[in-house]
């Protein structure tokens, strides 16, 4: 099973890519084929959100539940991967903005909040590399990640309401409903599932790598 599972994931992802281009219809009111980026941009943003949330949860478990090193590894791996997906979401968003709005960047509230989230979690990694003593590093990093759980709602829910946004409705919009053609909704759900599984798969590998690097007698210890 362990050997087949990655292949199933790859087949699933290929299916999603095919469906995004040939099965799903185009959304109304978008330039050309640009609405198809939705099937990749939204899951990336979703995964980075899940990753940062998971990093916060693992940090709470680390601080409250006996300071186990495995929880710290899980939190830092989640932040690293979350940053990667955050960058991907930002880049795909900027490409789409170029097509739809005519500029890669215009400080739309959504763009502002994703950049601030990126800076915050980059600062988390900077903090990790600034503390030499491993136990202090884990403790301080975990505290900072929990602080992120307080800052994030302001970034994602409070700030976007300060100014008018051009960004299309987020999947569940302010009216609390999903307003999307059913085939598009299917592909988006399949894609989000694929990206989420992909994230947890890479995350598991990262955590095992970190644990091994820590055990290695002469190996480098990764921050």
């Amino acid at each position, binding site marked *: 099973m362990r050997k087949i599972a990655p292949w199933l994931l790859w087949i699933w992802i290929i299916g999603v890519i095919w469906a995004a281009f040939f099965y799903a219809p185009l959304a109304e009111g978008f330039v050309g084929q640009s609405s198809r980026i939705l099937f990749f941009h939204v899951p990336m943003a979703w995964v980075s959100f899940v990753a940062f949330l998971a990093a916060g949860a693992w940090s709470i478990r680390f601080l409250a539940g006996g300071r186990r090193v495995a929880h710290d590894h899980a939190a830092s791996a989640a932040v690293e991967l979350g940053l990667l997906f955050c960058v991907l979401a930002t880049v795909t968003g900027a490409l789409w903005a170029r097509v739809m709005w005519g500029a890669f960047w215009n400080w739309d509230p959504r763009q502002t909040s994703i950049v601030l989230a990126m800076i915050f979690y980059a600062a988390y990694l*900077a*903090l990790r590399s600034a503390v030499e003593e491993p136990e202090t590093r884990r403790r301080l990093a*975990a*505290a900072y990640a929990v602080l992120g759980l307080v800052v994030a709602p302001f970034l994602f829910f409070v700030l976007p309401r300060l100014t008018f946004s051009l960004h299309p409705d987020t999947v569940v919009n302010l009216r609390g409903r999903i307003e999307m053609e059913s085939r598009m909704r299917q592909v988006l759900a399949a894609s989000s599932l694929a990206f989420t599984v992909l994230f947890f798969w890479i995350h598991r590998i990262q955590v095992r790598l970190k644990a091994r690097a820590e055990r290695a007698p002469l190996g480098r210890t990764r921050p």
Partner: protein
Amino acid sequence: MSRTASSWLSEAAAVFAKEWRCELRTRYALNTVLLFAFTTLVMVSVALGPMGVDSVARATVLPMLLWLILLFAAAAGLPRVFGHEEEKHTATALRLAATPSALFCGKLAFSLTLFAAIEALTAPLFLAMMQLPVAAPGHFLAALVLGGWGLAAASTLVAAIVGQARGQSTLFAVLSFPVLLPLLLLAIEATRAAVGGGGGADSLSRLVLYDAAMTVVSLMLFPAIWNP
């Protein structure tokens, strides 16, 4: 060992009194931070002049400049709240002497009063030098108080984190600015509304939310940061 509320309060008060006594002995934070705020203020004022910004842009640009001056003044002075304990190797004694929550409250009270003093001197000077009339002084004052509270609370917590790391001054800026950015945007929004004379109640209530969340989470996180 049970601690009563009054002993907790007296511990917090002792920490607060000790901070101010140390501060008044050296006047390090007051002198440097105030001079820093004053220098940036003069620079802004000379560069822009009272007529440097046209009257339409004034209400949008000037509140932002005021908060930038306050932000950098906070970044110059507040890291020392915990930094000097590590520098002088008094942190261990402090760990033995006070409960973490009382210690944090004492330090927070010191940061709040210090920053209030900085604001009380900087803001009127800024208004006078830039010749910026404020349409709703009550809202302006509320924005200063609430923004200052959030700034001091978040800076104190980050100072506690940074105090135990190396490369302190740069690290403080790196860690605190992403935490402070939402607060600053809200404070700038509230100040703009106060200067313009319309609304701003929305931003003020969000500022209260931020301050409350930051204070509560600081109190919860501080023991984990402080105790090895």
